[in-house]
């Protein structure tokens, strides 16, 4: 407090002091003149007796100065002058630092937005996600079913609200063109649980979960784009999927739940699920686990306490309903932000670690530059020590110089990061949650500045160690050109460290690239090229609609085949349903489970998966036909190992109405088409013929030789000819879906590859600089050697040997680091072991080549040294 005041009034103080001193001298002169001296004599005498005017005034002012800070500023000014004196050094150091800090700033800004920032709901730290634990095999979190959700809701005492939600697709008609909506089916208190009320109208009421209720809250975006921001929209009835729904509210601008790549357009209550088109609505099927659940902890309740209570409820449900709940006696609670961003963590943290390594390599380069400069300035430091500068003072100056450098580097780096992020972020795709919110905020800036400060300590340490060494004053004695240089060992060690880090990064990048290559090139089990898919929500008798649609699709020019199916390959969406094997019946709860899918005849031909044995579905496999199934190879091997699966009968839990329950005969075996991109092995799956299980809503697949653009209009016309009020959505090529699924991996590979390249370049320049400097310093020695008969080849070999010593030492350290680093990558690697000798060998080779490249010019320079010139120079 006091010093602030002092700082403010200091100018006045200084003026007072000057005036006071002037008055003093005037008074003295006056007195002396009165005593008989001449004006000149009096003035001279007054000054003499006063003492050194400037110095005393300065000391008087000094009293008020805020010493440490102002000394710091003057050190900074001095540091800037020093940098200005060697601009090449300054530019090299600043750019290197900017590269390192900028890289980290950019990556951290992504980590910050995706992982660190709290969710944009009030008191979001109390929001948790609720799942049950499926204890079959390795325990894994599982979604909830409606009846279980209702029981958790009524029995718990730990949540203020607990809310179920699930994605659904809707068609809006009667408001302009037919329009596809992404929606959520939620329990009534979605808006209370999030703590965000709608801006217009209201949220849902408990009674609106009842059968027959059809109410909507629409997104701000939908309100703007489709309803022209009409304030009277609340209470209006709109047609969704052919049924009238009442709009009761409009969500605030920017509100989104759940946070997903594509924004949600509307929310409706689970009344929608209470009237299901299967005979038992899903709200009454305890085994239909399809709900995500979010809850708000009561104040003061911890997540562990909540979990403990829910575990009790889950255990009692497991006892009460063994058929469906026996294997789900426990729950799995995580904070909602963890639930949302958990998957994004490993790749982002790997990138952050890699960026950190890049910065370390950059630090190595800057430290080496500084060391060389310190060596150059040895005389300056020796002189300053000799005339009385304490070591503390010298160290402080060095630290200030480092800090100044890194702060300039930080500024340049942050600006560069802002610039490059614009170019790079679009490559990240939209699979990382909240990736759209990435930006440089206060926290990112703080991170960068702290990082720069820490960085300056890291690279600034080397010259400080050098200064603190015992032989500073010897700098004065040493003539220019002596070969003793205490900093040399330190520089060499730094260079070895850089080579090691470069190898670690390179090896990590090679592992990720290999993993990416594996994913890209593995057998998908079907032919994505030329395949496209789209979805519609038919409003009429589905089986009839899809049958007619398949006919229409088949007759589009260029289309070779068409089919329907759900879920589609590569989408990663799964339906997992238990079944009973006829020859090995098991009680409910102990039956085997597997993924299932529902497909039409021609599906396998359309996606390009071979039928290995038996037959495809045909038009006779209808509801009243013989119940049949097709399984994939993995299914046959897992559940019927070593026997012919054709003709075996199983009874799946999935049914359509009362007519469903029955043993189904396996009539065909097909290849393993991948349902999701990143699962390791081939997953077993069994296929129903669509007409025997006409669930809503399969996607349509078309294989064609003509490009998508020309096909799109034909598809729209065909759908329109069946129902002109039907929006088409999710129209996309399988290639596109594949590429989309790969974007995050691609992003990580791209960045890590760039980081490794940058690190390698830095290492090469570092090694080059070190060797060149060594050659220059040893000019005389080399000249002497040449004069004594060393051939240019021998001189060249000498430099190269030196370089290779560094490289080999660096490799030895780097290989150890790479093996450790590989383990850290384990979770994101696919089809490649964390320790891969071949890749490591290639990385070593690249490093060795880079080392040779760095050594080439200095070696040539050394070989061309003219002994006469070199020796005479001294």
């Amino acid at each position, binding site marked *: 407090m006091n010093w602030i005041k002092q700082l403010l009034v200091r100018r006045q*103080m200084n003026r007072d002091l000057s005036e006071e001193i002037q*008055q003093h001298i*005037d008074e003295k002169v006056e007195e002396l003149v009165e005593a008989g001296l001449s004006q000149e004599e009096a003035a001279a005498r007054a000054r003499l007796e*006063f*003492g050194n005017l400037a110095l*005393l005034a300065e000391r008087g002012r000094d009293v008020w100065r805020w010493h440490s800070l102002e000394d710091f500023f003057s050190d900074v000014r001095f540091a800037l002058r020093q940098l200005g004196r060697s601009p090449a050094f300054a530019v090299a150091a600043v750019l290197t630092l900017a590269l390192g800090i900028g890289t980290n700033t950019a990556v951290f800004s992504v980590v910050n937005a995706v992982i660190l920032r709290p969710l944009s709901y009030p008191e979001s730290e109390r929001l948790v996600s609720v799942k049950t634990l499926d204890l079959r095999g390795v325990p894994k979190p599982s979604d909830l079913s409606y009846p279980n959700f209702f029981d958790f809701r009524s029995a718990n005492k730990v949540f203020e609200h607990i809310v179920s939600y699930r994605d659904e697709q809707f068609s809006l008609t009667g408001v302009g063109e037919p329009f596809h909506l992404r929606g959520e089916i939620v329990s009534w208190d979605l808006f209370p649980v999030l703590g965000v009320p709608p801006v217009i109208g209201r949220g849902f009421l408990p009674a609106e979960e009842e059968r027959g209720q059809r109410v909507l809250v629409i997104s701000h975006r939908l309100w703007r784009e489709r309803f022209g921001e009409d304030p009277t929209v609340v209470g209006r009835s709109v047609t969704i999927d052919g049924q009238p729904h009442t709009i009761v509210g409009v969500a605030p601008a920017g509100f989104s739940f759940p946070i997903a790549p594509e924004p949600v357009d509307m929310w409706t209550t689970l009344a929608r699920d209470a009237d299901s088109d299967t005979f038992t609505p899903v709200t009454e099927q305890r085994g239909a686990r399809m709900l995500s659940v979010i809850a708000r902890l009561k104040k003061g309740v911890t997540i562990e306490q909540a979990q403990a209570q829910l575990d009790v409820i889950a255990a009692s449900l497991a006892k009460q309903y063994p058929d469906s709940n026996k294997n789900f006696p426990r729950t799995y609670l995580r904070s909602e932000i963890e639930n949302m961003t958990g998957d994004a963590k490993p790749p982002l943290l790997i990138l952050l670690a890699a960026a950190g390594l890049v910065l370390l390599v950059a630090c190595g380069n800057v430290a080496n530059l500084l060391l060389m400069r310190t060596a150059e300035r040895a005389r300056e430091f020796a002189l300053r020590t000799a005339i009385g500068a304490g070591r503390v003072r010298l160290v402080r100056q060095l630290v200030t110089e480092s800090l100044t450098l890194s702060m300039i580097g930080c500024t340049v780096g942050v600006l560069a990061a802002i610039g490059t992020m614009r170019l790079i972020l679009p490559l990240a795709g939209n699979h990382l949650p909240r990736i759209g919110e990435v930006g440089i905020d206060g926290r990112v800036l703080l991170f960068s500045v702290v990082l720069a400060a820490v960085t300056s300590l890291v690279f600034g340490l080397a010259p400080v160690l050098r200064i603190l060494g015992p032989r500073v004053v010897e700098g004065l004695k040493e003539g220019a050109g002596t070969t003793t240089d205490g900093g040399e060992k330190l520089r060499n060690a730094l260079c070895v460290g850089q080579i090691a880090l470069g190898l670690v990064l390179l090896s990590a990048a090679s592992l990720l690239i290999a993993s990416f290559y594996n994913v890209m090139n593995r057998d998908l089990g079907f032919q994505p090229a030329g395949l496209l898919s789209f979805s519609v929500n038919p409003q009429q008798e589905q089986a009839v609609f899809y049958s007619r649609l398949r006919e229409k699709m088949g007759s589009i020019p260029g289309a070779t085949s068409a089919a329907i199916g759900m879920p589609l390959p590569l989408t990663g969406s799964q339906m997992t349903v238990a079944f009973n094997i006829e020859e090995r019946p098991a009680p409910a709860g102990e039956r085997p489970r597997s993924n299932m899918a529902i497909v039409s005849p021609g599906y396998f031909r359309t996606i390009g998966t071979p039928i290995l044995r038996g037959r495809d579905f045909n038009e006779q496999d209808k509801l009243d036909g013989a119940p049949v199934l097709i399984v994939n190879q993995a299914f046959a091997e897992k559940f019927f190992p070593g026997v012919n699966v054709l003709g075996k009968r199983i009874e799946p839990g999935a049914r359509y109405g009362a007519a469903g329950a029955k043993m189904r005969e396996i009539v065909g075996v097909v290849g393993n088409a991948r349902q999701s991109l990143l699962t390791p092995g081939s997953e077993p799956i069994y296929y129903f013929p669509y007409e025997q299980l006409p669930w809503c809503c399969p996607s349509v697949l078309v294989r064609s030789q003509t490009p998508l653009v020309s096909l799109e209009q034909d598809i729209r016309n065909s759908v329109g000819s069946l129902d002109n009020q039907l929006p088409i959505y999710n129209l996309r090529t399988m290639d596109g879906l594949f590429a989309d699924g790969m974007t995050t991996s691609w992003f990580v590979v791209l960045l890590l590859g760039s980081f490794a390249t940058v690190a390698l370049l830095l290492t090469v320049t570092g090694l080059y600089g070190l060797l060149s400097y060594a050659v220059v310093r040893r000019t005389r020695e080399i000249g002497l050697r040449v004069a004594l008969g060393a051939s240019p080849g021998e001189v060249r070999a000498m430099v190269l040997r030196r370089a290779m010593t560094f490289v080999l030492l660096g490799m030895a350290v780097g290989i150890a680091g790479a093996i450790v680093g590989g383990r850290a990558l384990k979770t994101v690697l696919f089809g490649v072991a964390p320790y891969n000798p071949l890749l490591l060998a290639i990385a070593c080779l690249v490093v060795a080549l880079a080392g040779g490249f760095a050594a080439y010019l200095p070696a040539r320079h050394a070989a061309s040294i003219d002994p006469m010139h070199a020796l005479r120079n001294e």
Partner: protein
Amino acid sequence: MSFKDRKDLFPGALEMMILQTLERQPLHGYALVQHIKQTSKDLLQIEEGSLYPALQRMLKEGWVKAEWGVSASGRRVRIYELTPAGNKHLEREVSSFERMLEGIRLVLSPRKA
């Protein structure tokens, strides 16, 4: 020999003398110097200017306060006045100075001890 050199041997002496002088009456810088010179019978050669850094230090410490006023000769001057804190400091300094002097005296005349 200037006062400045002696100050290194005995830090705080000048300040003590200033405070002691100000205790009797508030004075401005020039009058202070003159007073100290005269009272010390010119035994102490004070470099007049060295007064000012000392006064600034004491202002900062809060031992004295200064106000612009008019001197007897009609000159605009800054008049220094002892504060209660300065008074306390002076008492402390004088007593510790006296103890020190006593100690030195005892050492210098060992036969009496």
